[in-house]
């Protein structure tokens, strides 16, 4: 079965989404945006941004807000109210239904909506690279049967099999993942570009029931924009005496600036509108500069936000539900990004609204999920697990070395080569750990095993490949293989991803809490390891080329190594004390090595020392920085 797309056929904007790899994704339009204006010019067949751009030029032939006319009688209140604001002609068609008249042609609202759906289909096909024949389309919860029928017909005209008509609030709830939870009451607060809807849903066993719905079909973001424009024009008039509302060109710039300011004030407390050369007075240019604070904006639109409360009250009364019984409040529509709107919603329902899904996209995403359920895309496989915590092994000095990082999608597999810590080590212990702390002892131990039979060799020479393989069910297979002998040892750990949320949270919090302390511990271990390897390396050099050193030099080196060893053995040795001894030993070693080189190459004497000296300088400088 081919993919079923989800379409949010909105009053002002529409969006399309599809299930992919188990999650719903918005399909970008041909213009590269996530939503497009629900505007149609049927004669030249223009839809979306392109239709919007020629709207001024061709207002009588450009249709917007056609959703308001879907399945409506011409004499109905909705049709008449739309007629008042629409520059295109609305007339009475067959069965006394509202139709749109352009030149001498009439179009049903279904035909116009079909153009929007056709664009959605074409964009989806371009994105998916296949033909699309099936769709789920959303409608407001209050749509009656004839409006739903009309929407379905629109889909058919567009060449789509409408698999289902879904309520917008239901789709939004799906996008918020509320179907998987408990039985609860959900409020969907949807403040879009042109309409406001509030719905009370009852969720139970994956079934959504719309208990009540209310709203204001002529209230939305556009009204908010108008308020800001009015304010800017009034302020400018106060300051300069020029009425910008008479200057269409200036008004256009203010409109763009107002929208930008509105968006900016959702994140910033203050914004500045700067429009140089906005107009002229007595041949002198005038500039518009105006600061708008968030508080000012909130004051300008306070009554608009307040208007959403009455429908909320009515919906609650209709559903016969107390505010205290509401389990979740979710936000839909771009205007709900405004902090004041969120605050008012919170104050009214007494609950922090959930805003985890992009409010412009929630409905389309939910429709896609519904499509996925129908096509069989959405099943249990949808729940691809991720590893909640990092998985790794213990390495020298009790350090946790991660192999599979936290939040890796399973199944996953990773290998890394390790080696021995001391000479002629016959076996290694692979200790498997889970957690975010840098020290092995602070993490959860999942198990360990021993790989033996390693051929005698210097430390660091044997190659032991450790592989972590975690399957889709969270079963972890850890194997260690000696590359020289191909000897292998393994262990299987079940439920490596299976931790309760509390456990994961606790471990993550601990990791944060002890971050500084852990870092110190790890630094100490790293320093110890550094010292260790210096001792071993130096000893190796002494035994390999000891005859080249004089007896005195040899003793001096031995002494400094001895000192370092004693320091390491002390129980109260610190990062600083080890570092001091280590530096001393390094200096001694370097001094003698230099002497050795000098003696060896009589001819290259000057060059050697030149090359050597600056190097030691930078070395010590770097170490000095680390200590600080």
């Amino acid at each position, binding site marked *: 079965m081919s993919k079923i797309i989800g379409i949010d056929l909105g009053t002002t904007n529409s969006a399309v989404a599809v299930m992919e790899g188990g999650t719903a994704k918005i399909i970008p339009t041909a213009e590269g945006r996530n939503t497009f204006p629900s505007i149609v010019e049927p004669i030249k067949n223009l839809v979306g941004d392109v239709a919007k751009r020629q709207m001024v030029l061709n207002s009588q032939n450009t249709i917007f807000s056609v959703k308001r006319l879907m399945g409506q009688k011409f004499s109905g209140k909705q049709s008449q109210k739309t007629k008042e604001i629409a520059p295109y002609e609305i007339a009475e068609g067959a069965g006394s239904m509202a139709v749109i008249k352009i030149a001498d042609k009439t179009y049903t609202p279904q035909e116009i909506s079909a153009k929007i759906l056709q664009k959605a289909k074409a964009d989806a096909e371009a994105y998916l690279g296949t033909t699309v024949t099936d769709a789920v389309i959303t409608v407001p919860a209050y749509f009656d049967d004839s409006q739903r029928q009309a929407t379905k017909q629109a889909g058919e005209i567009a060449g789509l099999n409408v698999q289902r008509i879904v309520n917008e609030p239901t789709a939004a709830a799906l996008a918020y993942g509320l179907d998987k939870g408990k039985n609860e009451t959900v409020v969907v607060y949807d403040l879009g570009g042109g309409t406001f809807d509030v719905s009370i849903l009852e969720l139970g066993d994956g079934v959504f029931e719309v208990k009540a719905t209310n709203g204001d079909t002529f209230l939305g973001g556009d009204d908010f924009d108008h308020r800001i424009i009015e304010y800017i024009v009034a302020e400018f008039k106060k300051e300069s005496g020029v009425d910008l509302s008479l200057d269409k060109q200036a008004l256009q710039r203010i409109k763009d600036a107002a929208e930008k300011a509105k968006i900016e004030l959702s994140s910033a407390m203050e914004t500045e509108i700067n429009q*140089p050369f906005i107009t002229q007075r007595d041949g002198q240019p005038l500039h518009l500069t105006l600061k708008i604070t968030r508080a000012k904006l909130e004051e300008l639109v306070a009554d608009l936000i307040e208007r959403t409360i009455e429908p909320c009250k009515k919906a609650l009364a209709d559903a016969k539900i107390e505010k205290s019984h509401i389990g979740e409040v979710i936000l839909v529509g771009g205007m709900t990004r405004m902090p004041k709107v969120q605050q008012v919603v919170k104050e009214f329902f007494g609950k922090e609204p959930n805003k985890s899904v992009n409010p412009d996209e929630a409905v389309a995403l939910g429709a896609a999920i519904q499509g996925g359920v129908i096509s069989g*895309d959405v099943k249990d496989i949808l729940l691809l697990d991720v590893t909640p915590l990092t998985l790794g092994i213990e390495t020298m000095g009790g350090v946790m070395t991660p192999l599979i990082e936290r939040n890796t999608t399973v199944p996953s597999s990773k290998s890394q080569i390790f080696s021995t810590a001391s000479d002629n080590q016959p076996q290694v212990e692979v200790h498997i750990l889970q957690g975010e702390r840098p020290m092995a002892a602070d993490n959860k131990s999942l198990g360990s095993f021993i790989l033996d039979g390693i051929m005698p060799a210097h430390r660091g020479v044997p190659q032991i490949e450790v592989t972590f393989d975690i399957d889709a069910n969270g079963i972890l297979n850890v194997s260690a293989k000696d590359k020289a002998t191909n000897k292998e040892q393994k262990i299987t750990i079940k439920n490596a991803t299976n931790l309760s949320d509390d456990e994961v949270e606790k471990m993550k919090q601990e990791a944060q809490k002890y971050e500084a302390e852990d870092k110190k511990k790890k630094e100490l271990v790293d320093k110890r390891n550094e010292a260790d390897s210096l001792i071993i390396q130096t000893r190796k050099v002494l035994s390999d080329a000891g005859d080249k050193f004089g007896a005195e030099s040899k003793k001096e080196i031995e002494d400094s190594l001895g000192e370092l060893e004693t320091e390491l053995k002390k129980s109260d040795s610190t990062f600083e004390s080890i570092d001091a001894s280590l530096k001393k030993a390094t200096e001694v070693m370097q001094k003698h090595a230099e002497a050795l080189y000098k003696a060896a190459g009589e001819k290259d004497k000057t060059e050697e020392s030149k090359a050597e000296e600056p190097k030691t300088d930078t070395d010590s400088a770097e170490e000095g920085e680390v200590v600080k």
Partner: protein
Amino acid sequence: MVKKHLNTEEIEKLNLRIEELESDYRRVLADYKNQERRFKDQEILVVKMANSVLLEKLLLNLDSLILAQSHLKDKGLEMVIGQIFSTLSQEGLVEIKTDNQPFDPVTMDCTEITPGEKDMVVETISKGYYLFDKVLRPAKVKVGDGMENSK
């Protein structure tokens, strides 16, 4: 050990399960292939269009500069603006031709109708640009209404 015989019902069930798993597998594989193809396209596009966000913001400032110039008519400023656009054109910015062109909603945004030849651009309010072959920003134009005595 006794060999266990499956009855037809069980075989039927298992076959159905195999079919289901195979279709799931194909679905995932198809998603992956598509994703791969898209990533490839995207990769090229991302590199090519990396400047688009910055350019869009910069163009707003340049609009102001052009407005300033149209008022000041300063020779030096004229040169500076020319320099900026020559630099930007090296990065793929191309001006959308509007003057005396028929109105095209793909590349232009009509903000006002004004006396003039019908459906022709009478005046450009702010210039539009392509970034390579994509419309970065449509031009804002005044379009003729064909009412007035256009010559």
